[in-house]
C-alpha cells in the first residue's frame, strides 16, 4: 500500500463536505468541511468519538443524506446530482450496507435475507436464494442458510449481514460499527471475513468503528472530531493531519 494515490484509485472523494441539520437555534453542524478519500481495494476506517459525524458522513457518502455544501464523488459519480430515483438505483447497484444491529428481516431465513438486494434488483427468487446459499457457504454458514436470524448468534448474524452487503457485488461497502455488538472473538472473525471477502481491487470498504481491537485490519484510518477529519493515518506508516490537532497514530488509537 503506497501513499501515492491516482485518480482512478479513489472510490470516494469528499472535499470540504458540510452537512447541517435544522435551522436557527436548532441548527446542528454535523459535518464542518470534511476532506476524506477511500480507495479501491482498501478497508478505510472512520474513527472518532460518538457524535463526531462519522455516521452522517457515511450516510452522505452512501447517498442516504444530501450534503449541505462541498464536493462529493462516489465511484466517479456526483451522487448529489442524481435524482431521487437515480440515487435509489445507484445504491441498489453499487452500495452494500452492514449495520451495527445487523437489521436482518426476522421473518426471513438467512439465505432469504442475503437475497434481498438481488430481489430488489428483480433477480428471480430461486436464483437469488441459490446465489445467497452459495455465498453463505463460502462465508462458513452452509449449515445455517435456512435458519431464522433469531436462532443465529451475533457473529453469525453479522456474517449474514456481510453476505447481504456483498451478494450483489457492490463497488462500495459501508459498514457501521460492524463489531460493536460482538464479543472480541466474534468481532475479530467478522473483520477477518470482511478483510478476506470484501476487499477487492474494484471495491472500497468504509468501516465506521470505535473498536480499537480491529484497527489492525485497516489500510487507512481517518479520525474524526467535531465534524472534521483531524487525522489520516496508514497503519504501515505515515500520518497526515488535516485538521487542527497534531496527534500521532498512537494517540489516535489510545
Amino acid at each position, binding site marked *: 500500500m503506497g501513499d501515492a494515490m491516482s485518480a482512478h484509485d479513489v472510490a470516494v472523494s469528499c472535499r470540504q463536505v458540510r452537512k447541517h441539520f435544522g435551522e436557527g437555534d436548532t441548527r446542528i453542524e454535523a459535518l464542518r468541511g470534511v476532506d476524506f478519500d477511500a480507495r479501491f481495494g482498501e478497508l478505510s476506517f472512520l474513527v472518532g468519538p460518538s457524535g463526531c459525524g462519522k*455516521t452522517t458522513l457515511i450516510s452522505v457518502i452512501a447517498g442516504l*443524506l444530501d450534503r449541505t455544501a462541498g464536493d462529493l464523488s462516489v465511484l466517479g459519480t456526483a451522487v448529489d446530482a442524481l435524482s431521487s430515483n437515480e440515487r435509489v438505483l445507484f445504491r441498489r447497484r453499487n452500495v452494500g450496507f452492514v449495520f451495527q444491529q445487523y437489521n436482518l*428481516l426476522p421473518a426471513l431465513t438467512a439465505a432469504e435475507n442475503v437475497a434481498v438486494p438481488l430481489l430488489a434488483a428483480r433477480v428471480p427468487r430461486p436464483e437469488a436464494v441459490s446465489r445467497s446459499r452459495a455465498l453463505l457457504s463460502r462465508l462458513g454458514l452452509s449449515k445455517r442458510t435456512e435458519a431464522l436470524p433469531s436462532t443465529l448468534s451475533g457473529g453469525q448474524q453479522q456474517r449474514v449481514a456481510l453476505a*447481504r452487503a456483498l451478494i450483489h457485488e457492490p463497488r462500495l461497502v459501508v459498514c457501521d460499527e460492524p463489531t460493536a455488538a460482538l464479543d472480541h472473538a466474534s468481532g475479530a472473525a467478522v473483520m477477518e471475513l470482511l478483510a478476506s471477502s470484501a476487499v477487492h481491487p474494484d471495491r472500497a470498504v468504509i468501516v465506521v468503528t470505535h473498536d480499537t481491537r480491529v484497527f489492525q485490519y485497516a489500510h487507512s484510518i481517518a479520525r474524526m472530531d467535531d465534524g472534521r477529519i483531524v487525522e489520516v493515518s496508514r497503519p504501515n506508516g505515515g500520518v497526515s493531519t488535516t485538521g487542527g490537532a497534531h496527534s500521532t497514530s498512537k494517540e489516535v488509537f489510545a
Partner: protein
Amino acid sequence: MNFVALRMLTGDRAKYFGLVFAIAFCTFLLENQTSIFANILKRTASQILDVTDAEVWVMDPQTEYWEQTKPLKDTDLTRVRGVPGVAWAVRLFKGNPVAKTLKGKFAVTFLVGLDDATLAGAPRKMLLGSWQRLSEPDSVVIDQAGYVLLFPDEPLELGRILEMNDHRVTIVGISDASAPFASLPVMHARYSEAVNFLGRQRTELSFIIARPSPGVSPAELTARIGAQTALRARTTEEFMWDCVRYYLKHTGIPVNFGITIAVAIVVGTVVAGQTFYLFTVENLKQFGALKAMGVANLRLVGMILLQASSVAALGFAIGTGMAATFFEIFLHKLATRGIVLMWQCVALTGVCILFVVIVASLLSIRRVLVLEPAEVFRG
C-alpha cells in the same frame, strides 16, 4: 419483493392473527347487524312481497304503510278497473282479529282477505292443504309460525278449529307466509268471510291489487290510476319502500341498530387500522433498511398495500364465513325465518373494510415515505 412483504406480515404470528381477527370480527359484526336490520325492516313489507301476482297496490291517499289502512269505497274498485292499462284488479282485505283455540289459547292475527273468485294475493307456498279449500265455508289458511304459536307442541294437521269473532273457522291449509314485522300469525281467508271474522264495518276494502296489461309498466299504471281516481297507487316495490321508510322514520329501530353498526365501524376502523399502522411503525427499521439497500418507494408502497390487502381479504373472508355460520345456526328457526345474510350487506361491509384498510395503509405509507433511510444507522 412480494414474498418479503408477506413474510414480514406473517413473521410475527401474534400480530398477524391479531390483525386478521380484528378485521374478521369487524366484518362479522357489520354483516350480522346490517343483515338483521335490513331483514327486520324488510319484514314490515312481508305481506306486500308475498303477493306475487299483483304489481300495483291502490289505497286511500292518506295511507302511508301496510298496517295503516283507511277503507276504500266499493265503487273505487270499479273506478280502478276502468283505468286503461289495468289487466285486472281485485279487492284485498287486511284486519287484525283475535283467533282463539278450543283450549283457550289466543292471539291477535294478521288476517288477509283474498278475492273470492280468484284468490289473488295469496302467498304461493303451501306447506299443507291447498288454497282451493278456502272455498269451503268458514275456512282459513294459517302460516306455520302462527300454527305453532296457537297449537304449541302439536303436529301440523288440518281441520283444527279456531274461534274468530264468534265464528268457528276450520284450518284448511298451512302456508309458508313470510314473517310479519310484529310476528303475529298470518291468516288468509276469502274476502267475503274475512270481513265477518273481524266484524263488519261500514266499509272494508283495505286495498285494491291490480296487474297492468301487457305493454304497460307498473309505474305507468300507478300514474294513470293516481291521475284518474285520485287514489294512491304504488308499485309493489314502491309500497315496500314506503313501509321501510315509515318504520325508519317513526321507530327507534334505526337508532338502535345504527349505534351498533357505527360502533362496529369505529371499533373496526380503530382496532384494525391502528393495529396495522402499529405493525408498520414497528417494522419501520426494516423498511428503512430496505430503503437504504435501494428498494424504491413505489415498491415499498406496493409491499404495504399487499400486506394490507392480504390481511383485509383474509379477515373479510373469515368474518363473512363467521356471519354465514351464525345465520345458518342461530337464525334457522321459525321465529327468525327469512332473516338471512344479505349480499348487499356483505358488499357494504366489504366497502367499509376496504375503507378501513385504505386509511390504515395511507397512514402507514406516509410513515414509510417520509422515513429517512439514514435512520437505519441509528442503533
